[in-house]
């Protein structure tokens, strides 16, 4: 029945748009080597310039947004995209939190331009890198730097089937326990953001003997300060290390920002 209804109905139109980003999250879609041809049977890829010359005008049923807003042009464009999207999903740390480039929100933008460009006056950019949700309503945020392939497929599938995506909101720490890893913090004294970081990667870093560096961003209701105080007390972790760990790909995510700011002298 379900299959038939999909065949009889027009396929939902999928669009992929990019703002300031590394392309890694939309590449995740092209990295679905086993699933991409199947995916093209359940959605109509209407706009995805990295993968196709085809461009079908909106409105789109499902829109995936990668990247953060850093220019006046993009600020206006995201409004147009929202207006032509039924469901808008942000993918990755740039779209959800501003990305690594949000470090400029805490610095002097003119000095940034001068460091990179000899003629900074040619460069038009906002002083900030902001998440998509600062500008428009977002229907679902898929976290990660980069996002996880299986989670992306689950999200697309769920929106096609009009159901709630099954994306766990617990921590990397829980994933790590489920993998039976030895704790890198307790056993090896390494600062690890696993307890406050959103699950989804499969606890890769601790599985490779390194502490989590928080690339999936804050989990639901995290308390990073309690964690960093423990590091200071029990692991003698330096303030600069704590600031560095929390101020990377999700540096502007509220829970992380609030904590690393405390260590910013």
């Amino acid at each position, binding site marked *: 029945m379900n299959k038939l209804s999909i065949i009889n109905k027009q396929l939902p139109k999928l669009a992929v748009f*990019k*703002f*300031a*980003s*590394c*392309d*890694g*999250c*939309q*590449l*995740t879609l*092209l*990295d679905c*080597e*086993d699933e*991409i*041809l199947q995916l093209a049977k359940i959605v109509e*890829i209407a706009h995805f*310039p*990295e*993968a*196709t*010359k*085809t*461009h079908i005008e909106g409105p789109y049923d499902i829109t995936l947004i990668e990247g953060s807003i*850093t*220019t006046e042009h*993009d600020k206006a464009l995201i409004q147009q995209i929202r207006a032509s999207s039924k469901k808008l999903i942000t993918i990755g740390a740039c779209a959800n939190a501003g*990305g*690594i*480039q949000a*470090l*400029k929100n805490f*610095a002097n933008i003119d*000095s*940034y*331009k001068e*460091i*990179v*460009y*000899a*003629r900074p006056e040619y*460069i038009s*950019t906002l002083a900030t*890198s902001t998440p998509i949700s600062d500008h428009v309503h977002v229907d679902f945020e898929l976290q990660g*730097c*980069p996002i996880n392939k299986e989670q992306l497929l689950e999200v697309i599938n769920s929106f096609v089937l009009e159901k709630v995506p099954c994306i766990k909101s617990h921590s990397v720490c829980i994933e790590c326990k489920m993998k039976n890893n030895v704790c890198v913090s307790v056993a090896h004294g390494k600062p690890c953001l696993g307890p406050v970081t959103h699950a989804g*990667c499969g606890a*890769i*870093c601790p*599985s*490779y*003997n*390194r502490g989590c560096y928080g*690339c999936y961003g804050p989990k639901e209701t995290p308390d990073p300060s309690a964690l960093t105080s423990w590091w200071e007390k029990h692991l003698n972790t330096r303030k*600069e*290390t704590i600031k*560095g760990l929390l101020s*990377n*790909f999700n540096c502007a995510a509220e829970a992380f920002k609030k904590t690393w700011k405390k260590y910013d002298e």
Partner: protein
Amino acid sequence: MSEEKEIKVKVGTKSRTIHVDYLARVEGEGSLYIRTNQNKVEELTLKIFEPPRFFEALLRGRSHTDAPDITSRICGICPVAYQMSAVCALEEGLGINIPEYIHQLRRLLYCGEWIESHTLHIFMLHAPDFLHYADMVQMSKEHPDIVNMGLRIKKAGNEIIKNLGGRQIHPINVKVGGFYKIPSEKELTSLIPILTEALRMCKQSMYWINTLTFPNFDRSYEYVSIYNDNEYPISRGRIVSSSGLNITAGEFLSHFEEQQVHYSTALHCMMKGKGAYLVGPMARYNLCRDKLSTSTLQLLDEIQFEKACTNPFRSIIIRMAEVYYAIEEAIRIISTFKDYSMSPSIEYKIKEMTCHAVTEAPRGLLFHKYQINSDGNITNANIIPPTSQNQRTIENDLYKIASDDKSLSDDQLRYKCEVAIRNYDPCISCSAHFLNLERKKM
């Protein structure tokens, strides 16, 4: 102005403007603008409007140990290249001697990226051009076996990166001094059957690619790549060029300079005294062909591929040959690797220093320079990605196409220009620090 225009019409001359405002099937955002008058190109700009992300600025003040993880975020398609140039530079500056077993594992990881990135470009971005398909999904309807082979080869590359690096995009296992963890023998050798199958598919794909029709195009280029007496270049060796340059990474900035153009957020890198030059598969092949494996050379001889390739439209064949080579190389490294119980990394001491490195990203030479203070924090960073280096060469190719191919319709010209840009597999996210075709009718 209008009078002038009238005169032109009277003498029967043509002027036109070609404009592509968003280049498809390239990584990142760019456009192309060409204005011709009396078949002479008056203006041609390859414009990169990818918003700048200021990596060099945001690295300042951070620990040198952050460099591999942060610079990998410049590009989701070639993160390994960024990690490798970063660690090679820092290790050189800190005087860390990387043992051969760590070097071999890094070469294996880099082979994974060459396979994955080249295969993405060959099958998903470039091959559809020569058969006039909009994309790979459309191509798969008439060439399902080819597309499936492409996907399998791509996956084999990604499996290497996932196995050794932890995940395909922005792997987590590389650090200054080595790795966080050396995979087990079981984990590494599990890749052999996948790679063996991919190698077979690679050969078949090469025969298929050789049946495609490529436009005739020839230009003289200045090629630049790493050269190493002992191996096809990936991360070790000196920088050489077709006109005889032979320098270390530390001497790079004395021979090359970045220039800013008003229409682009990407800087153009030029060779001092020479101007535009070409990096990437075509440069590596033309400068280091003899370092390819015997079986790769046999495969190229079998399809009668030229020993020196000067037609960038044919670079897709070189990419396929490099994939073949990289798979063989990966099998070789895994089959001979014995050091599973060795330490994954080398201890080192921090010191104030300036360091440089170049490695061969899939798209070509990737230069990194860092200055570190006595606390081990970055005080200065300079990164020159391959697409910045190829940008002027791409513009020059387009200039030749727009000037030479007078019989082409606007649509044909636009199409040919787009394919010519994709010859270079431009990575726009990387270069912004890239495309739209405008051919303006006067």
